[in-house]
């Protein structure tokens, strides 16, 4: 992931838009710049307009973000069952 991809937080509720992740479930592909998110797009949680988001430079907590699994699940492996 490019270092200069940015994160934006909704000031109405705290919803996070990460340019690196996009919002595929809302039709916004990973890597989509904030400037390229449609101007009439609103926060999926609280409907705040785009201009009420603020860029933040805050690191993720350990183990975050949980990325959605892309593609088919890996087949079960006996080896993986024994990895502790």
């Amino acid at each position: 992931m490019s270092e200069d991809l940015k994160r934006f937080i909704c000031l109405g509720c705290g919803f996070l838009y990460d340019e690196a992740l996009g919002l595929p479930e809302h039709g916004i592909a990973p890597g989509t710049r904030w400037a390229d998110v449609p101007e009439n797009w609103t926060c999926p949680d609280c409907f705040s307009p785009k201009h009420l988001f603020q860029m933040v430079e805050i690191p993720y907590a350990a183990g975050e973000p949980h990325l959605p699994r892309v593609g088919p699940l890996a087949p079960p492996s006996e080896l993986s069952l024994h990895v502790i």
Partner: protein
Amino acid sequence: MKTSFVIRAVARGYNKLRSTGPLASYISGHPEAVLIRHSSFNFGPYQAGHAGFGRLRVYGDEVFSGPGCGYNMHRHHNFIICAFVLQGELTHINTVGNIDQLTSGDYYVFSAGSGGKHCEVNLKNDDMHAIYMWFLPDQLLLPPSYRRNHFDALANRNQLVTLVGNADGALRLSQDATVSRLSSDTAVALDYVPRSASHGVYVFVLEGEVHCDDVDLARRDSCGIWGAERINLGTGPQETDLMIVETAP
């Protein structure tokens, strides 16, 4: 260099939100309830003031009036939401698993982190008054959490007490910020020393009158100060109650 601003009580954002009409899904209450919100900083429809203060983004002085008045269950991420009940009874329900009832002096810290919902409601006939603060977290998508505590104004009278932050008996915050409170019944003078000169201090008068450096603050007036090595605070001889938020830039 020291910089400061003053926000007079009447200059804050003002919203009168009704439980009937277009906001019925947002505001709870029946048959009609009214929620009054004064915002020190820009929030929702109020965008004409300061954007926030350091890591503090929202400072709401709120009154829930009428049967069942409050905010219906709604979603948050990331923000650390603190409520300090001044009067009445607040029922707080969250998806961390808490149903809590808070009365005067009680307060909570609800960190929405990776996602949580909450409901804030006054189930009593008497008005509920509370101060709501929202802080940015120091990490995104933390595990959601809820903690509550009580400020005993009588036992701590005329002393500055840290309610939130890194101090004995205080609720911890995942952020470089503290919230303190002073409830006095006589004139108290104190020098408030921020953790560093880069930290900001926001002083909000709940009741009474406060002299803050060279500014006189009345009820619900506030001031924000950056770059001070120490801040000279004085309360009036009458009963006074004030909150102090200290935050990294």
